[in-house]
């Protein structure tokens, strides 16, 4: 999935994204480039707000959640590495497997722990190079039928 930045300040955000204790004020300016495309590595939905985990212009070793209204989707095809989780508290996460197998994965990644940084390096490399091209429907189904026919 790829998105293109269309805004980078809090002025562009719907009211429900404004959360001053967490840094999201009207004045906040994020390290993004308007018009630039970013790969989405994970998605978070919380109380009606959607956040994309991307490697912004200050990326060094971890993706960071960024408000969805600052982007338009330019490639809506989803990654084959993604998994889905709906937590009892209502948090919806879509992310790569390792994010969920260790409940502290993202915490450790942002703490710069070597193993988690290495895992994200690998996931990023795979997702950046992911090939989304699929054959046309008729070709794909013919191929499948050839495989399963006796």
């Amino acid at each position, binding site marked *: 999935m790829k998105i293109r930045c269309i805004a980078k300040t809090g002025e562009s955000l719907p009211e429900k994204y404004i*959360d001053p*204790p*967490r*840094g*999201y*004020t009207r004045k*906040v*300016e*994020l*390290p993004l480039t308007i018009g630039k495309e970013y790969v989405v590595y994970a998605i*978070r939905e*919380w109380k009606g707000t959607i956040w994309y985990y991307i490697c912004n212009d*200050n990326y*060094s*070793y*971890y993706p*960071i*959640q960024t408000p969805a209204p600052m982007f338009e989707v330019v490639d809506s095809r989803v990654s084959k590495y993604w998994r889905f989780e709906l*937590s009892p*508290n209502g*948090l919806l*996460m879509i992310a790569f497997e390792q994010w969920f197998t260790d*409940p*502290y994965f*993202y*915490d*450790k990644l*942002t*703490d*710069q722990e070597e193993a988690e940084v290495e895992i994200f*390096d690998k996931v990023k490399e795979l997702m950046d190079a992911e090939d989304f091209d699929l054959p046309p429907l008729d070709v794909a189904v013919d191929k499948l039928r050839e495989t399963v026919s006796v």
Partner: protein
Amino acid sequence: MNQGAIPDESPRNLPEQLLLQDAKAGNCIVIHCGTDRLLGDAPRLIALYGGNSEDWDKMTSIEAFEINGASVQVHWFRNSQTLQEVEFKFKRQYPKTAPKNL
């Protein structure tokens, strides 16, 4: 695991000092919301500083300076209810060595 308070890390040079000042002045955003998933440090933070697990967020400076070859950010914990900020530390990420061309 460390059970005690982790003192704020001191900046090593003037750019780090400026980065820290900028972050403390409010140029920061959340990395990890305590409402999402428990931070590994949450039990320790609650024991030391109070609050509930969902109150404690991990924050980062918005700016990241290139200092002595490293990309440097400031991280710390903030209680979203009381706005108490604790345990500032610098995260220095050096570029990876290019793989050898075998």
